[in-house]
């Protein structure tokens, strides 16, 4: 397998993986943040 093919495959795969990771982590952290903010605000209100 040529260097360019390896680079393209890894680059494309990396884009896919990191994009997925970004979507999943954004979704998880957003949910966590909402719940956390809600819980903290309940302590003050």
């Amino acid at each position, binding site marked *: 397998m040529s260097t360019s093919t390896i680079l393209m495959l890894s*680059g494309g795969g990396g884009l896919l993986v990191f994009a997925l990771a970004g979507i999943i982590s954004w979704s998880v952290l957003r949910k966590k943040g909402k719940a956390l903010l809600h819980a903290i605000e309940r302590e003050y209100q």
Partner: protein
Amino acid sequence: MPTVAASALEELLGADFTDIRPLGEDGGLSRLFRAHKQSLDVDVVIKRMRMDPRRPADVQREARVMTSLRHQFLPRIFDFKTDGEGYCYTIMELIPGCTLRQYVQRQGALDQKQALHWAKQLLEAAAYMHSQRPAIIHSDIKPENIMITPQGDICLIDFNASLELRDDGVEAVGATMCYAAPEQYNVPLSKFGDPALLPPERRQIYEIAAAAQSMGKVTERTDLYAIGAVTYFMMTGYDPACWAQGVVPLERYSITLGDPFRQAIERCMAVESGQRFSSAKEALRALNGLAKMDKRYRDWRRQCQTAALVVGAGLILSAFALLWGFLLRGQETGAAYNALIQQAQQLREQQDQAGEQELLLQAIALDRERPEAYANLGALLYQQRDYQQAVELLDQVDPDQTGGLDQAEAAVAQGQIQYVLASCYYQLQDYTAALPCYQTAALFCAGEAAYQRDLAVCCARCGYMDLAGQALTALSGLDTLPGDTELVTGEIAYAAGAYEQALDQLRQAARLSESHTVISRASLQAAQCCRQLGDGWIREELDILETASRRLDTAENASHIQLLAEAWLRLAAADPSRRAEGYQQALTALEDLNSRGQPTFAVRQNLALVLEYLDRFQESEDVLLALRADFPQDYRPAMRLGLLYADWEGEKAQKDYSKVVEMYQEAQSLYTGTDLDSDMVRLEELVRQIAG
């Protein structure tokens, strides 16, 4: 202070106020009364105070400001009056409920929800006062001056110590221990007199004032200190110590207090006013955003930032790798393509045409944009005389594509492609298709004499004599090879019908040139000139064709040998003395062509004909039967067989013309009759005679 009769107060305030009675105990500097304001049907509080003789002119102005205040957490001040004895009367809305101090004494320290709720309300009231022009500073916010209404809200009362903020601050009027900000103690020490003579409680105040000399003047931030102290009281149930004595940190108390709230209270109570919130609004914003200041929330934000950083870096790196791969791929493809071209070139030198073709096809599959492989493969197919396949290959090439080559290299490659394509069309005798290709090739490579030469020849073949003349002129300015110019002038002369002149030029071209292309074309066209001139030139034609077929390679001289065979047959027909020689020579030529594999229809038919002329009927029949089997839809094999059988039966004693009739019928069924065939007419006549 002497007690003022309610009736005297009635006299001062007027009949609008009824049921005037004292409220609470004598407050020292002030006295409170309760009354009912008839016009508004509300209970009011009347506060009687001695006016500050140092500020007599400010009283009226402050009264106007106070009466204009309207806020849900401030009492409504209805009126402000003075009597002639140095007292002022503030008539304000009666706020039911208890003071904050009373509330905390009864209920105990508050939870942070409640404390936060009321702290925000205090800040809203303070923000409102500070937003007035000029800003109003309460300067005496303390639990005693905060009412808790039955609705559960606060109401900030008692504006006696309030100040109008002018320029960058005012001097403190009064200070309540624990709740007063340090700058409220910033009073001239001369007011205390000799400190050595002060009683202990005054001495304490003096020391505090001495410490406060650098604390600046009273500003909006003074109220913030007090609000912070009140919040401290609400959370702990204890008054904060005076700032000068060191306030006990909130962490020391066993209370549920979040760090952000604690930090906000501590910031409000900063000794240096510059370290507190800059305004009540800012403090309020901080309290409204406590959740986001919480350590758990900030940890979460840090997690988000880290995740964003990692994902972002990953995406950027991946995109970079992908881009790099694309760029590298272009370079690798180019290098692989060049390697294939070089390897193909090596195989060409080794005469390995199959291997060369394979490599060139791989190169084309690798990069369809580059023209080099197309040019080389086209030349190879031309060399193999596979003109149709070469045309199909090269016709799909766009003359404008450069395939990443620089302009000069692309022009050379495209010129070569167009020249080979044109040459293929020329060999297929499609001169009309060949002409634009020659023109394009000459345009790309204006310095190539061969391109101009063949363009001129093609123009002459198509009848464009002017264009042929122009191409000849262009050719004369180039570095031509021997025979090039003669070939062109010969073609032009032929097109003009000057066959003898053309013959002379073309013979010269064939003699002078070392190029097999020129030799081949010149000799073929010269032979054509001889045919145009008539049977008297057959010997010339034979000489031309024999010379050419000897000089050309086996792969190049097939057309010449075929024409040679036809010329010998014409000689045999024209000169009876040389008939046998003619047939024999024709037979030799045709057998040579037949032995090379895949002879054309004409070659096989002529071979059968010559064999018949030489009375070798069986061999002739074998050739014609094979031809008939290979071309079942062609009438000519059947026709020739009919004629052969007629000729053959004529030699026999016992004649049987049934096969003649049979072949005639077969030929007749296949014959379309669009082109009149004299042999078909002859056969028909024969059959009629046989039938007759």
